[in-house]
């Protein structure tokens, strides 16, 4: 139940409360470029969700076993090379960014091949935007989030994958909403100076305002899920003084 609650919190947090596009501003390029038609926006959203899941899976594996400070694989190699007496703590985290970008580029290549083979029409309509997923900040951002929480030993594979999939779905939601609005916007009389990117930005501002309404949902979800006994346990743990503070937290507690 504890794990399930944590996962649900991460999911709600990644998809709604801290939406990738509207709170962290990652993935703005496709948000502006591909949000003209609903079907393309939906396709783009699912492509990004897929790539971000694959990239998060690979980057979690690499971070956990190779890149994090004290990871098992380089330490083993180091001991084998330098002998048993050598200090085993290896830190390859300086290579993280280069490894991630490599992982992302390969995943995008893979998706491109897949889409070209099985959805040729979709492939044509994406045009240059499909290879541009490589330089989509949302994907690198997902990898970096995974890296941060794996370094602090908070997240396992389940948490990382939940964040990636629901972050991608949140991106899909934002870009589809935007595409729906822009299809209507084409019919309306926009001031000349605002045509194009400017009115899209102002629309995104209103969307972001709407999404700010989700702030604080996390704490309520946690309370509802864990029920009265958990709330009482927290109260007993914390003592009467700082009850409100510990109940108001939206961050999932680190598991050891």
């Amino acid at each position: 139940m504890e794990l399930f609650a944590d996962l649900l919190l991460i999911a709600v947090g990644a998809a709604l409360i801290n939406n990738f596009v509207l709170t962290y501003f990652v993935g703005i390029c496709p948000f502006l470029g591909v949000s003209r038609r609903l079907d393309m926006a939906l396709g783009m959203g699912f492509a990004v969700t897929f790539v971000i899941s694959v990239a998060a899976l690979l980057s979690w594996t690499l971070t956990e076993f190779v890149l994090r400070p004290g990871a098992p694989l380089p330490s083993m190699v180091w001991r084998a090379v330098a002998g048993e007496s050598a200090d085993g703590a290896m830190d390859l985290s300086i290579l993280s960014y280069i490894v991630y970008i490599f992982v992302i580029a390969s995943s995008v290549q893979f998706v491109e091949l897949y889409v070209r083979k099985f959805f040729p029409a979709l492939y044509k309509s994406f045009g240059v935007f499909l290879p541009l997923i490589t330089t989509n900040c949302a994907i690198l951002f997902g990898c970096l989030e995974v890296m941060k929480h794996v370094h602090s030993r908070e997240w396992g594979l389940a948490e990382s994958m939940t964040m990636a999939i629901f972050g991608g779905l949140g991106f899909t939601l934002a870009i589809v909403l935007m595409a729906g609005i822009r299809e209507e916007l084409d019919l309306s009389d926009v001031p000349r100076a605002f045509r194009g990117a400017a009115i899209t930005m102002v629309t995104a501002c209103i969307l972001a305002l709407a999404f700010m309404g989700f702030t604080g949902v996390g704490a309520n979800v946690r309370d509802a899920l864990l029920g009265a006994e958990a709330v009482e346990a927290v109260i007993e743990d914390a003592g009467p003084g700082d009850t409100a503070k510990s109940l108001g937290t939206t961050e999932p507690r680190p598991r050891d």
Partner: protein
Amino acid sequence: MTTSPTALERFLNGILPENPVYRQLLGMCPTLAVTAAMKPALTMVAATAFVLICANLVTSVIRSFLKPHLRILVFTLTIATFVTIADRLLAAFAYPMSQQLGPYVPLIIVNCMIICRCEVCASKQGPLTALADAAGNSLGFLLALGSVATVREILGMGSWFGLPVLPEAFPRFVLMVMPPGAFLTLGVLLAATTAFQQLRDRRRTPAEEAGADSASPELERAS
């Protein structure tokens, strides 16, 4: 294109006529994300400028060895290397700022502006031109982030670089330092640049432009 632009042209083009943010809509992520105040915005510009200049120089030096189908990969790896250097330097000498910028420093790797400059200029022209190009585009980026951050910090917190500039009685528009404010500011500034450009175009050719306007508004350049 028959003749490549000279170093000076590249430098000047990067600042205003081909401003990376306002004109080409590149590098939107940092423009929106780190411009709640001037200090993080300028740190971001400094880091991006360092990466852009180094990546442009390296790309320009190795341009004759680049294979066409591998060039994007080489650009990305070059950029990732310099971003790692910038990130470690920032963490070593300005730790609080590095914490504040968080993931946006590593996200310089996927800043389209840098790949665009490598592709358009550095992979075709010599190191001097590439350097001028990088410097011009960095200045343009500075202008863009500086303008957005100025508006947001003054309206949102009543200060500029942390120094108070608005009187206490003036209400703080807190929304401006939150995510919606970023979108709003950039949208209005984009519209302002477009309006300014349209005004200048019209002044240059008053008769033709006015005639075109009244005759067929549908035929306007869809920007």
